């Protein structure tokens, strides 16, 4: 896992429709690490909250916008 890859980024990737293997390849992570993150994201309710609030964005750009206030993942994103 590269230093900048966070739990939130994996949740955003999978919440936007990526598969475990797809997220694993695009983020350069081991598939079972991605699966573990997704599992925990589901348990904490992060994935469902992201799907209901954040996935309506046209892709999570990693930059904070006005509509991102309700997204559970914005906390770990840089804002502009």
């Amino acid at each position: 896992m590269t230093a900048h890859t966070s739990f939130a980024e994996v949740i955003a990737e999978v919440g936007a429709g990526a598969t475990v293997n797809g997220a694993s390849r695009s983020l350069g992570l081991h598939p079972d690490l991605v699966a573990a993150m997704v599992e925990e994201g589901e348990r904490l309710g992060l994935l469902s909250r992201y799907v209901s609030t954040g996935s309506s964005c046209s892709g999570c750009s990693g930059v904070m916008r006005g509509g991102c206030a309700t997204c559970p993942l914005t906390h770990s994103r840089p804002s502009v």
Partner: protein
Amino acid sequence: MMDRPTVLIVGNPNVGKSSLFNILAGARQHTANVPGTTVQLERGTWRTDEGELDLVDLPGTYSLVARTPDEETVANAVAEADPDTVACVVIDTTAPSRSLYLLAQVAEEGVPVVGVLTMNDLSEAHGHKVDPVSLSRWVGVPVVEVDVRQGTGAEELAKAVATVQGSRPVVKDLQPRGRLSRDRADRLSLDLDAARDRADRLFAWVAAIVDHLDAPPDRRRPSDAIDRVLLSPWTGIPVFLVVMWGLFELAARATAPIIAWVTGFLGGPVANGISWLLGAVGLGGGWFESLLIDGVLLGISTVASLVPVLALVYAALGVLESSGYMGRVAVVADRAMRVIGLEGRAVLPLMIGFGCNVPALTATRALPDARRRLLTGLLVPFTSCSARLAVYIVIAETFFPRHAGTVVFAANLLSVVLVIGVGMLLRATMFRDVTREPLAIILPAYQWPKIWKLTRSVISRVGEFIRGAGGIIVSALVVLWIVAAIPVKGGHAIGDVPVEDSLYGAGARAVVPLLEPLGLGDWRISSSLLTGLVTKEATVGALAQSYAVDSPGVANASDFGSEVRATVNETSGGHPGAAGFAFLVLVLAYAPCLATSAEQRRLFGWRWATGAFAMHLTVGWILATLVFHIGRLL
């Protein structure tokens, strides 16, 4: 006597925890229920050179953030561990991230930890065997390799446990801290930001260790070729349908002679024995004998006849789950299931429902989320079980003799439409909180099922059914006997009354106005539907009984069909086809059978079981009324 120190075996599902437990405890083990739950734990004694230890084999989990009663048990066992308790966290070397994340959570709870490497032989076969010494250095706690197949490594593990006992865990770069999993209420009130940050920190720790392990990021397995078939929608869905068909065939063919023997034995020698005994004490031939034989014994016979089917379906489910096939089914069905807010794993209970709704409800326990389990459990009775099939065939032969097969097929198709339609309706109303989450699971390696584990699981599940639903079924059949035995007219004696003159017959007549809008306003039809509330197969028998037509013989069956058609022709105002199809729709949807309702109550409580019953009555009545009135126009 001093309490012995406890060793908790913690780990993900299917990583060899139970095999490890068997190696350490040997024959010194027993099963015990967790107080206040139906969760069963294996407990045993581990005799080591350092002394005896209490060994607890905890259910498998991926996290201490619990979602099921089994996982709650793990979280509570770790959170409430005594100071001298040690957790042996099993590390599956083929999926180390998930194991290490759990290890990190346990260590953060403040429980001394020893890592136990399993599956290293599989990792070695893939060219990345994990060295326990190096892993121990990176993690900061003792790590021991145990070969659960050969039974080696137990002595080293005992030494490692003795080393950490009573100490604070010294997991590298992690500090014991507040308890995440103390109980469900705490978890639900957690600050999401804090929980996410904590998970983020633990995953960063896991990722750093996994980088050391030098595992190939997306390794290929010999089973990949099988997965290419099972995970493709073009081949995976047909394979799944064939597997389910095989399961139903097996359930029907293999259990039919057993059921026949059981019901024959109870209805023959046992019933005769009861009659003889009652006769010997001067109680024979009266209502008491009828109550015992036609009420209590019939109830026991109904429960007993379900047991072989349930045992076989549970065994088949166990094989599908433990072999790793279930995960593949979940993936391939996920897209279709998300339409109704469910995930791929829900397809199995719904498919099993086409065989029998009772084990289908039990199968909802495989779903990780309580709301999805409930939603699936409410939809299962809309799946057209095989008991209803027998009723469809008789109705179709009676009203549509030239297109009976097509009509029966249409009824099953309608069942699928109902599951989807009611699912969408429930999701849009009472289950708005159930979101369309993507199913992101990592597929487990294929494994041969373990016979002893499977056997214990089947015994446990069947036992749960008998304890939870059996009493309700027997009680309900006794109540049914009582209402059918009480005469309301004609001067008959209790227990010796024709159906139409009994309280049951009066109840059937009272229901008739409700069936008039469906073109089915006749007491004989309503009485068959009332009987169908107990068991669907009995619908036809009750109808035939009401018409006083003997079932054997083609001529008699034909007479029965003609009489029913003539009745419905009259009640429907000359539209027997429309009313006949409405009858079929009603049988499909109007109510779950008694055993299904009892199982719903056991799994979801009285409130939901009663609500589901009311929902079925409403949906079935509205749909059948619509079918009749639209059918009249055609």
